[in-house]
């Protein structure tokens, strides 16, 4: 059949299809990384918030209050500020799906011959990579508050940040899959994300809290993420590192599975 210029890349079957989906994951990941590296202004502004927390809140509160076990307050909150950066970066990257699906590049990806699963995984991986990079930049503040980080410490922190970001980005995708507008995002931030952050142990220790707060903190997955960051960076922790990691991994697995299921059901 004479079909004009048509060459037809439609034979993709079996391993070929798997390869195509792997390529799609790579395309989505690479695209976000290029964007991230190209928008220098965004990188700089993303550092302002953690700097304000550290140098104004941290130093300010630190001049009146000491952290637990005699740790400098600003040092105590440092892992929390890193965690906060990762939290906002990864959530925001996946919430951008809402906008991107209607008015952006995501639409191009959604009509391409690739599976929804590949799209969700690509999105989660790219969100966690850029969030990890932003967290890594905050680590650069360490010397300014008189902290020394060893290379193994930094590597552990990076791995941990990636894992936490992956769990959070997957959560974000799960939420974004059913979200209609960006306004709902603001609502979600105020009523869900901020309380979750405050009850994570990032700003004050979870020990000795009123009972109800303690309960919430224990079922707050972010608390385990922050706790793990603290174990790695300042050596203080509430739970065993193994428990922390187990909770984060279970959460990541559950959220990415949910996000994949929800995206596959769309349309």
């Amino acid at each position, binding site marked *: 059949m004479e*079909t004009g210029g048509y060459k037809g890349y439609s034979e993709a079957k079996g391993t070929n299809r798997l390869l195509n989906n792997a390529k799609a994951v790579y395309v989505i990941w690479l695209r976000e990384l290029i964007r991230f590296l190209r928008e220098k202004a965004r990188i700089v502004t993303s550092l302002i918030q953690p700097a304000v927390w550290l140098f104004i809140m941290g130093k300010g509160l630190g001049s009146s209050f000491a952290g637990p076990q005699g740790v400098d307050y600003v040092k105590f909150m440092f892992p929390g500020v890193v965690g906060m950066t990762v939290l906002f970066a990864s959530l925001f990257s996946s919430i951008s799906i809402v906008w991107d699906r209607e008015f952006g590049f995501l639409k191009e990806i959604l009509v391409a*011959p690739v599976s929804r699963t590949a799209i969700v995984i690509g999105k989660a991986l790219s969100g966690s990579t850029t969030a990890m990079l932003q967290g890594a930049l905050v680590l650069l503040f360490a010397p300014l508050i008189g902290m020394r980080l060893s290379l193994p410490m930094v590597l552990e922190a990076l791995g941990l940040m990636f894992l936490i970001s992956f769990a959070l980005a997957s959560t974000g995708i799960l939420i974004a899959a059913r979200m209609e507008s960006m306004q709902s995002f603001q609502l979600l931030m105020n009523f869900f994300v901020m309380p979750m952050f405050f009850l994570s142990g990032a700003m004050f220790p979870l020990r000795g809290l009123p009972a109800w707060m303690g309960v919430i903190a224990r079922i707050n997955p972010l608390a385990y993420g922050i706790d793990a960051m603290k174990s790695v960076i300042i050596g203080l922790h509430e739970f065993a590192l193994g428990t922390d990691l187990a909770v984060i991994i279970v959460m990541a697995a559950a959220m990415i599975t949910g996000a994949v299921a929800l995206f596959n059901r769309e349309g």
Partner: protein
Amino acid sequence: MVKIVEVDNLRKEFGAVLAVKDISLEVEQGEIFGFLGPNGAGKSTTIKMLSTLLKPTSGTARLAGYNIAGQPNEVRRSIGLVFQDPSLDESLTARENLVFHAMLYGVPPKEREERMAEVLKMVDLSDRQTDVVKTYSGGMKRRLEIARGLLHYPRVLFLDEPTVGLDPQTRNHIWGYIHQLREREKITIFMTTHYMDEAENCDRIAIIDHGQIVALDTPDGLKRLVGGEVISLKTADDAEAAAAIAEKFGVQVNRDDEGLHFEIENGEEFIPKLFAELRTRIRSVSLRRPTLDDVFLKLTGHAIREEQVSGKDRMRAHVRMRRAGH
């Protein structure tokens, strides 16, 4: 002829709202097929179903022989899509946008370079390919999207309101590219528009209103539904000519400052008769065919209207304006 698009009783309901009401149609290979109707008529919903983005409530369709429900990946490979809303990544260069597209559609790297050069040349963007898309004008972005839609050698190119938000000159250019494209690639083009004058570029048009196809024909065929043409005439003595025309041909003649006007069937054949029979000297004569506006009005009882805007539409209009660089 090969039927490249076959739509059979396609229907889409959103809750209680019936967006597309059991439409059926066939598009032949190599055609420029137009979907004409107001905003909210169901054009974009239909395209979304045909491109497997949306599951129909009932009915089926085949694209290039593939079923939209059972073989979505094959359908996706066979079509190119240019959306109503921009879907380029503006932080990337034109090249990067194209390379990513080629990777998503599995175009082999060797062929990719050749094809990219080809489509970029076709839309006159070769010399701007390494620029970030953000720096492009609205028309350039649309051209790049068309180029991208063609990259994987699709058999049907869907253009959803390809010229909306562009100025008239750019719109003409885009149409130039579309015609050129059809010549070169022998591709089938399925487009939607709510601009009457644009629909004239199509080989066949389906007029859609409230989710239903109310007529489907060539532009000329559709216009014949209105019946007759409008003839305008200037003569040495309009009063005498008016009386003569009314008497000899039995038509009602309107007279105004511009001259004489009347409607008549087969106007082209009528003009020679007019010259032969009218004693008064004719200074000028013009024949106006009925426009698609006339057709739409006749078929639906209302003019193509702008729908009330929802929040999303407002957002959309905003994005369009921003992207057009106003």
